[in-house]
């Protein structure tokens, strides 16, 4: 103790201690990978196929172009557009079964700071189309249910909305503060980012009041919506560049309504926003400082595996 009684020694030792603590806390939050176990496995099984709604391609082989894909179960059309001083990509998706609407975790492992790029995960699962998910691994709260497996049953404490996708592929949006594990029976996917953008064909994004500060900023965005049974829209908007400003949540909701979504939900955006079609990143992912895909926790994809 006499060592610490000399002038400034306590300050120096304590400063080193505090710096080490801070470094550990930051590494723990942003860098150190930590795998975790699911809350429940195979608790939410799919309930079977829905009748095919897509016309089979000639000869049964997939028909692929730069902006479209079609086989007997999946039909995707990609459109590039411009609105709100921004470039956006819209994927119109028709499926014969909800089995083809899937999610995947980075390195097939649930946990914190376990990440891969959207294109790496898409390649690992032979995805026809993939977009970033909700980046669940960046937070400690928010329900995580993927492909029928419940990984995290902790709702966001103060506010938040989750996207629920049932076994028939139908979307619904739930308040996470009141959502409980028993509400998830029959659900195939739960994504927790939000907020919900569109409900019954109308925007649910308000301009002021409850809008979070980042919601009102122009940013790259990713959203997923449902038009009708097994008919979906996925939108990725580029942002933070001279060529594309990015959109607010209100503008994103307007975009989803323009594409006839009856219900739509905001996924992780910013540097995470990425759309991969047939193995290629088709948008321009950037966090505003560095170009290229961000490594994220999960993807939503269309594919057979």
């Amino acid at each position, binding site marked *: 103790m006499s060592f*610490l*009684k000399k002038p400034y020694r*306590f*300050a120096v030792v*304590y*400063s080193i201690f*505090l710096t080490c*603590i*801070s470094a*550990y*806390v*930051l590494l*723990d*939050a*942003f860098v150190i990978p930590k795998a975790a176990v699911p809350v429940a496995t195979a608790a939410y099984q799919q309930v079977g196929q829905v009748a095919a709604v897509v016309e089979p391609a000639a000869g049964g082989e997939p028909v692929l172009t730069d902006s479209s894909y079609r086989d007997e179960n999946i039909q995707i059309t990609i459109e590039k557009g411009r609105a709100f001083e921004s470039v956006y990509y819209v994927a119109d998706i028709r499926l014969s079964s909800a089995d083809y609407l899937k999610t995947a975790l980075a390195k097939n492992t649930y946990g914190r700071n376990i990440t891969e790029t959207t294109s790496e995960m898409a390649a690992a699962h032979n995805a026809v189309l993939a977009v970033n998910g909700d980046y669940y691994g*960046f*937070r*400690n*709260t928010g329900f995580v249910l993927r492909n029928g497996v419940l990984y995290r049953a902790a709702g966001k404490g103060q506010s938040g909305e989750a996207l629920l996708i049932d076994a028939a592929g139908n979307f619904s949006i739930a308040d996470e503060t009141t959502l409980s594990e028993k509400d998830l029976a029959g659900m195939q996917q739960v994504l927790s980012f939000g907020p919900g953008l569109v409900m019954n064909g109308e925007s649910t994004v308000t301009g002021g009041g409850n809008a979070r*500060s*980042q919601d009102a*900023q122009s*940013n790259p965005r990713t959203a997923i919506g449902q038009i009708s049974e097994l008919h979906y829209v996925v939108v990725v908007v580029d942002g*933070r560049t001279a060529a594309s400003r990015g959109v607010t949540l209100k503008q994103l909701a307007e975009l989803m309504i323009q594409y006839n979504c009856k219900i739509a939900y905001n996924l992780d955006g*910013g540097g995470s926003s990425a759309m991969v079609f047939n193995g290629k990143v088709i948008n321009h992912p950037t966090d*505003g*400082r560095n170009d290229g895909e961000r490594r994220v926790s999960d993807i939503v994809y269309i594919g057979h595996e």
Partner: protein
Amino acid sequence: MSSGPSARQHFRSAALVYGVVSAFTMGASRIYALFSQGVSSEAMTYMFLYPLLGGTLPALLCWALADRGGGVPRSRAADNLWNAGIAALTVASFLQGVFEIAGTASGYTLVIRLMGAGLAVAAVVVGAAGVIKRR
């Protein structure tokens, strides 16, 4: 435990150092805001209040009162504990701000905050015990 001219000088130095730290943390939060894509955090914005209200103002008050009555008693142990507490609270606020801006959270910020509060309380207890003992 001491008071008088040396204590007055000490409080003036402490006020100056805490003033510099307050200005530094205020500047750091402004610079961080430039790179946070428009996302703000109250914990980050107002972290300078810990050194300002917990350091500069008390030191100025003690400096002003140093020549009155019996002076303001002080002890190295209490000073160290108080400074450590304010530092921990400021760091916890900074980390909280980083996490809020990034859109994540960590339970460790609460641990550091509690540690800071505990050190500040310990400083008051040690300081009060010194005053009682002196009388």
